[in-house]
């Protein structure tokens, strides 16, 4: 009876996810194995193309660099926020939430204004005589990474503040009073306790950058194509749906593999958490 009640309440949402997410996505992946050219043909085609391999490698590279930078910036920021007095902490959290709630288009657009040929950074650099000619900053890998870091730092900060707040001050002071230098307290007390949070943050940022569309499109353009923009181009510009489905399948597999791998790593490092 109870089992029935539980299922009947959960069934509308369950059906919605199964019918409109699981089945369509599985169907997309299955079609890549059912092409007239043979079951693995689309994948052989993908990995056989130097251009596509470059795109995949670029996407992994951009996502990894973004993740590392966001971890570094986010961790220090979250640590300071978590140790700030109450009123300041609230203000800082609001300041981190605000960009997070501002959409990805607006946030990428902001960087287009900054990094453009006649953008703010170039005007400032030329105006102050540091450089003679405006530099090309937009449509480079650097631009994509800066904007991605901008996108994900707030997420990282908010993920880590909760984790770092739960480390008692007493513990940090105990470490210091036992003679540990700040750096030792950091590496031996704070860092190990923050690992589960760092892993969650890293997974969110990596998978988010790996599958991003708007930011690489706006700041990287054609020359910095990544998996997301290539998939869109294949689906909506060249209408090669088999190729788009193949890219989709590769994105799903890599995303889920990363999540599973990191969950396992987190469990091994800290069996109590996760």
């Amino acid at each position: 009876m109870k089992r029935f009640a539980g299922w009947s309440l959960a069934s509308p949402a369950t059906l919605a996810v199964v019918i409109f997410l699981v089945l369509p996505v599985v169907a997309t992946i299955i079609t890549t194995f059912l092409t007239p050219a043979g079951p693995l043909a689309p994948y052989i085609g993908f990995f056989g193309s130097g251009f596509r391999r470059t795109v995949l490698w670029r996407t992994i590279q951009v996502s990894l660099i973004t993740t590392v930078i966001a971890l570094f910036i986010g961790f220090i920021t979250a640590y300071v926020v978590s140790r700030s007095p109450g009123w300041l902490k609230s203000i800082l959290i609001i300041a981190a939430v605000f960009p997070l709630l501002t959409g990805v288009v607006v946030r990428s657009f902001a960087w287009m204004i900054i990094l453009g040929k006649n953008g703010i950074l170039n005007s400032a650099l030329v105006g102050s005589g540091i450089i003679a000619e405006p530099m090309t900053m937009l449509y480079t890998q650097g631009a994509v990474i800066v904007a991605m870091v901008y996108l994900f730092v707030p997420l990282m900060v908010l993920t880590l503040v909760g984790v770092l707040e739960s480390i008692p001050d007493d513990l940090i002071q105990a470490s210091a009073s036992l003679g540990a230098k700040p750096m030792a307290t950091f590496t031996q007390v704070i860092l190990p306790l923050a690992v589960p949070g760092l892993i969650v943050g890293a997974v969110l940022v990596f998978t988010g950058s790996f599958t991003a569309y708007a930011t690489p499109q706006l700041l990287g353009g054609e020359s910095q194509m990544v998996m997301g923009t290539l998939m869109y181009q294949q689906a909506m510009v060249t209408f090669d749906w088999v190729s788009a489905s193949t890219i989709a399948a590769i994105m799903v597999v890599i995303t889920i593999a990363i999540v599973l791998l990191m969950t396992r790593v987190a469990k091994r490092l800290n069996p109590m958490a996760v």
Partner: protein
Amino acid sequence: MTTKLHPALIAFTALVFVFLIGPLIIVVGAALSDTTYLTFPPQGLSLRWFENIFAISAFRRTIITSLQIAFLSTFIALLIGIPAAYALNRYRVQLPGWLSTLFVLPILVPELVLGFSLLKNVAVQFNAPIYLSLVVGHSLLVLPYVVRVISASLASFDFSIEEAAISLGSPPLKTFFTILLPNVRSGVIAAFILSFITSINDVSISIFLTGPGISTLPIQILAHMEQFFDPTVASVSVLLMALTVAVMAIVERTLGLTFLAK
């Protein structure tokens, strides 16, 4: 007594917040500019670009579409998500463990893949109206937020209160509205707001499910940018930021913003 922070750490954090907020201030500046091209600091203040948003019919249309889609999909997600979250908490033992994982799937599966799959296997395959597919896509996108936030507020709810009401003769539906809902009210508000904002800002799903005649605001912004790189986009961005501020004010009033860090 709190831990002392090294001045270098404080300086670094201050710079990070300049990095986080600075670009958004620049967008506001650009929106107020008097010139036809984007500059900062603005040369002469003007509100003409705000007027321009409403002069362009495509923007007017997409603002309305985006609001409709956000309301509809949030409503649907709440309608199916609240009972699901309730079931997951109340009948935890009776339901299989994978069920809660299922409701996280929309976050796990890349949005682009979901958008493309909905286009390919639902909209085109079954000739479903694009508007409907857009609502379905957005409902799925926001469902995990609803389930997670409502579950979090149910975690502290004592189900024996509800059982007491039922054993005293209160009908289930009445119990739901008079006992349960008031207890998770703040969770519902939070879920509504998060979902609404997520839907309004979505690009990755919408980009596949918009076409001639129907588009959402972020997609229209992208399209506009390809043709004109003028301050209109900045002023639309400011409108979206104003919406965000309004939403944050509501969250602050009802829950306190630190809630979002949990």
